[in-house]
């Protein structure tokens, strides 16, 4: 779980992020809640025209509300630079800074070879439901870092198909979320 410095300034769903220097994760959920769990958020704005006016009229909201991102840990990097797509031995500490990965980091996380390394999908596949959306989003985002996004997505989808073998409906649901149909890329 991470918290953004600014309200609503979270990285997009499925973004590959780095916690500190060596832990990788994928944004698998974004929630905005009141900072104080005992105080419920009140619906406002009955008397104004736009949403922006609400925030202008109540500048304290920026401080009372927080956007949190849920990050599924998908791998880590050893001191020698080798990336593993499985959980690190320790989780990141509280207050570890989160960074959005650069395209270079994305590529190094997925491996440089012809077939992307997608062992981490196993970690994501366990979530089910919105996890599948996060998985599809992660693949969509990551594909942009590669020269041939479609080839990446096909290879990734095949890994998903192996992982979820026997559940064609679910595979189909994930594949439909990916832009790999004819002419979409």
């Amino acid at each position, binding site marked *: 779980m991470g918290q953004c410095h600014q309200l609503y300034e979270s990285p997009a769903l499925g973004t590959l992020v780095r916690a500190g220097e060596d832990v990788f994760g994928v944004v698998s959920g974004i929630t905005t809640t009141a900072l104080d769990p005992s105080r419920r958020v009140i619906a406002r704005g009955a008397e104004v025209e736009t949403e922006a006016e609400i925030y202008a009229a109540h500048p304290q909201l920026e401080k009372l509300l927080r956007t949190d991102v849920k990050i599924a840990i998908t791998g880590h990097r050893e001191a020698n630079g080798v990336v593993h797509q499985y959980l690190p031995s320790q989780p990141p500490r509280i207050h570890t800074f989160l960074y959005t990965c650069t395209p270079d980091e994305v590529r190094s996380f997925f491996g440089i070879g012809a077939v992307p390394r997608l062992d981490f999908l196993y970690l994501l596949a366990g979530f089910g439901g919105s996890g599948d959306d996060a998985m599809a989003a992660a693949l969509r985002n990551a594909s942009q870092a590669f020269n041939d996004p479609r080839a990446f997505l096909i290879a990734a989808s095949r890994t998903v198909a192996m992982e979820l073998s026997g559940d064609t409906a679910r595979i*189909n649901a994930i594949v439909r979320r990916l832009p*790999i149909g004819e002419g979409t890329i």
Partner: protein
Amino acid sequence: MSNAFEELGLAEPLPPKDEAVEIGIIVGGSLSQGLDVRLTGNGTVEDAKVGTFVTIQGTRHRYFGIITDLSLESADGRLSSNIANADAAMAEVLSGTGTFAQAQVTPMLMTGMGEEEPQPARSLPAHFAPVNRATNEDVQMIFGEEDKTHIYIGSPLDMEDTRVCLNLEELVKRSNGVFGKSGSGKSFLTRILLTAIAQRGLATHLIFDMHSEYGWQATSESGYAVKGLRQILQSGVSVFSLDLESARRRNLTPDYDVKIGLDEIEPEDIAILSSTLGISDAGVNACYTLYDRYGKRWIGEFLGMDASAMAGLASEGEHAGVLGALRRKLRDLDRIAFIQPEAPSGGGAVKQVLDHLASGKHVVMEFGRYGNDQMAYVLVANLITRRIHAEYRKRTEEALASDAKQPDPLVITIEEAHRFLSGGIASQTIFGTIAREMRKYHVTLLVVDQRPSGIDEEVLSQLGTRITCQLDNERDVDAVLKGAPGSRELKGVLSRLESQQQALLFGHALRMPVVVRTRDYQDFATEMSIPGYGRGPMGPGDKKDLFG
């Protein structure tokens, strides 16, 4: 002698061997049911064909097998209902992952690491063992190379450059069968076998050539002329004709004009014809009585009897009606042109055949217009074979007693074999006996037939090597495969043979069953006819050179 072989075929460099192409991995199976091979890689589903020859690399053994079935599998039992809205992308994702193709491979042989000689497969490779399409080298290792005892018969499917060779030495040790529906290439295969055996001096032939197609040039179904044995082996082949007119019409001069004497026909010969001629069991019994009474000339005497003699015979216990019927039937025999009242002086056809065979010549017995006359064909084939078999038997026994040279092996080729070897009469005819006692007396059969289901099961099971072209009838397919190891799998292969030039070969002369595209007969005939190769059959002296 060996130079002639080396100059040909063997010296000719084989094309470079293919790289082994992986087609899949082992994912399950059993020795009895065959191995399940998951096909990997793109496009292999359509490339893998039934009958394809594969090798499987285990950790300590290498296995050889053939693909006997193919199936499409999916990991999801509900795939067919879930896939309704799948598009091209989905198909690309699922193919090879959630859905895949499986091949059934029957393991046939195995070789241990560092061993040369393949053994029948008695163990299995482990899961994930890679399965490769066999290379030229693999096939060569199993089927040998063309040499003194091996003949190149065809190429495995999709391996046009690879040669499958039959071990002729093993072949002639037992009776064999060539099957296939009409027009499937039986006669071409038979010609290749006959020529190759003769060429290599492994046996002498006696061919009952029903349709006059083996001796001289014949015309193939596609219209071109096909060389006969006589043209390839020349004076090494003697052509006997039962129908001189037919031979003359074709501008040919047979070496011998066959005449059969009524006094050469014995009751046994009639017994075999009983169903063809419509003679009852009582009639057959009467034949034996007549033979006891009149000896060799029994038919002549019987046909020549007047009414009072007939009445006399009837009074001695034979039923008058039976005798009358028998007489009418025997008259049919008498009407056949090549049957004469008495055998020609000098021993007749049987002796001539034996003399020719003894001098190392191959004998082709042409039936001319009698080819379609079942009675004539069965009578002559049976009559001659019985006496020849008796003679070989005598010679073998004498040779055993005196430690002398055994007679040279004789291969008797019969067409439409079901007429001699059907369930009811196989036990009575000489052909049934020959098929059963194998090589004991140095006489074996080459059975050529289009209806193997008509042949006695016991005889079929004795056939050492079976060569089968396409068969349509389910019963025929079952009959041919009866008793063959892995017959269930082979059935799938056999029923998918193309209608021409493809044959399934299995049995003693091969290490494992194989489907081949048979070699072109014209090429074969040309090869056989070139100087040095076509110097006629080897005499006894040459055989000694070859086999010590």
